[in-house]
């Protein structure tokens, strides 16, 4: 038996456990860190599928940037666990129903009828000179160049919109202007008062 199946099972076991922990663990920081682990093992599995560009970009974008900002926010929040558990029983039937529905839908869509080994075939083994990065670049910039550009333009639009929405001057917020602080002179801050010495009583 070659080492690949063993590695695959190790990684997929970690992936399944980590994904389960994301939703079951109580501490939100642990949940975010489990998600990091899940992304990382997912990248490892993609690497085994010879998709090294996608795997590295997954680590770079999701693990290196998105999850850092997630953690950043989660650590600063003071999450009240007792309040978030309020009404657990009341919402259980509706929530359970939605979860079941999503589970069934995923089974139908992602099941062996669409993604089975008979449908997709064995993953192709490429020669040593195959470069996933190059192949992906060629596909993106020739066949899919318009969707790619549109996606890029949309993302830029989203960035500009997000900044425009949050960049408003609040008149009541106070802030320092170091340039003005440095330029301040003595007679603007201190008033020297001359007065008579008081007599000894």
């Amino acid at each position, binding site marked *: 038996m070659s080492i690949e199946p063993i590695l695959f099972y190790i990684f997929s076991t970690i992936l399944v456990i980590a994904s389960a922990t994301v939703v079951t663990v109580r501490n939100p920081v642990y949940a975010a860190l489990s998600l990091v682990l899940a992304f990382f093992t997912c990248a490892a599995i993609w690497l085994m599928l010879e998709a090294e560009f996608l795997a*590295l970009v997954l*680590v770079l974008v999701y693990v290196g940037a998105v999850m850092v900002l997630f953690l950043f926010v989660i650590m600063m929040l003071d999450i009240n666990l007792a309040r978030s558990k309020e009404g657990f029983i009341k919402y259980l039937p509706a929530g359970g129903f939605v979860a079941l529905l999503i589970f069934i839908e995923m089974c139908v869509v992602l099941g062996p009828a669409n993604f089975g080994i008979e449908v997709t075939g064995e993953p192709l083994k490429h020669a040593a000179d195959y470069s996933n*990065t190059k192949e992906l670049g060629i596909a993106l910039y020739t066949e899919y160049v318009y969707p790619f550009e549109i996606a890029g333009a949309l993302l830029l639009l989203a960035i500009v919109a997000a900044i425009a929405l949050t960049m408003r001057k609040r008149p009541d917020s106070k802030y320092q202007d170091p340039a003005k602080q440095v330029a301040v002179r003595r007679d603007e801050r201190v008033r020297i008062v001359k007065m008579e010495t008081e007599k000894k009583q």
Partner: protein
Amino acid sequence: MPISRWLNVRLLRIGPNRVGPRGLLQPIADGLKLVLKEIIIPTNANRFLFVIAPLLALAPALACWAVIPFADGWVLADIDAGLLYVLALSSMGVYGLIIAGWASNSKYAFLGAMRSAAQMVSYEIAMGFALVGVLMAAGSMNLSAIVESQSGSFLHWFWLPLLPLFLVYFIAGLAETNRAPFDVAEGESEIVAGFHVEYSGMAFALFFLAEYANMILISILTVIMFMGGWLSPFQGIPGLEDLFAFVPGIVWILAKTCLLLLLFLWFRATFPRYRYDQVMRLGWKVFIPITILWILVIGVGVMAEIGPWFD
């Protein structure tokens, strides 16, 4: 590393150079002290995360070395997406800092972690764009191929056509490693020692090691991408080229790396610390526009095949 530590110590102050002849044994004494000291875990700290954080800081810095070519063919993993691999793994290093800050259950450590997270995420963008410029100029993400494409002479190296990116990359590298003048994550005058204020003994030493490992990594990457890697600086100069032909490539790459490392220490001894909002302004409002502009310039250069770099 003891050498850099020693240099650092000599440049900065007179205090820690009392052990041994001329203070030469000071680094060994420091190291021994760190190994022998107790690791104190604060009350209400998250034990598991507190212990694992230094490892998370050090491991990515060491893992990056897998794709670094030391000389022609002297590379552990000659992968095509080497540049991306380095960028992806070095972006993992921030977890060690964030987790350390959070798990310590201390406000100073937490503030330091927040600062370093914001700083590293901001400067990563500028760094990534600088790398985009390099891969456009080299036409490859393989680090060995990047060095090969700079072959020719001292003037063929990418520092000349990519000068703004070279400066941005190195300065962003300073910020990424949280070195002075960008060490606001430590900021001992404001937040005591930042994210590692609660760490002692070997756990603290691991953070220290991670910082130095990252410094060496950034230096060697700058050398590989902008200063011709293992190529001889006398290449293409008649006479001198043959005279120095016996020097192996690894000597050149290590010499150039040491030169940049010296810059790290020199900056630390020279510049005062940036204010936090200035750090952010430099990253977002200066570096990112410069890199985007220069990527356009490189694009024009590559399309027009301006020699001797882009032909």
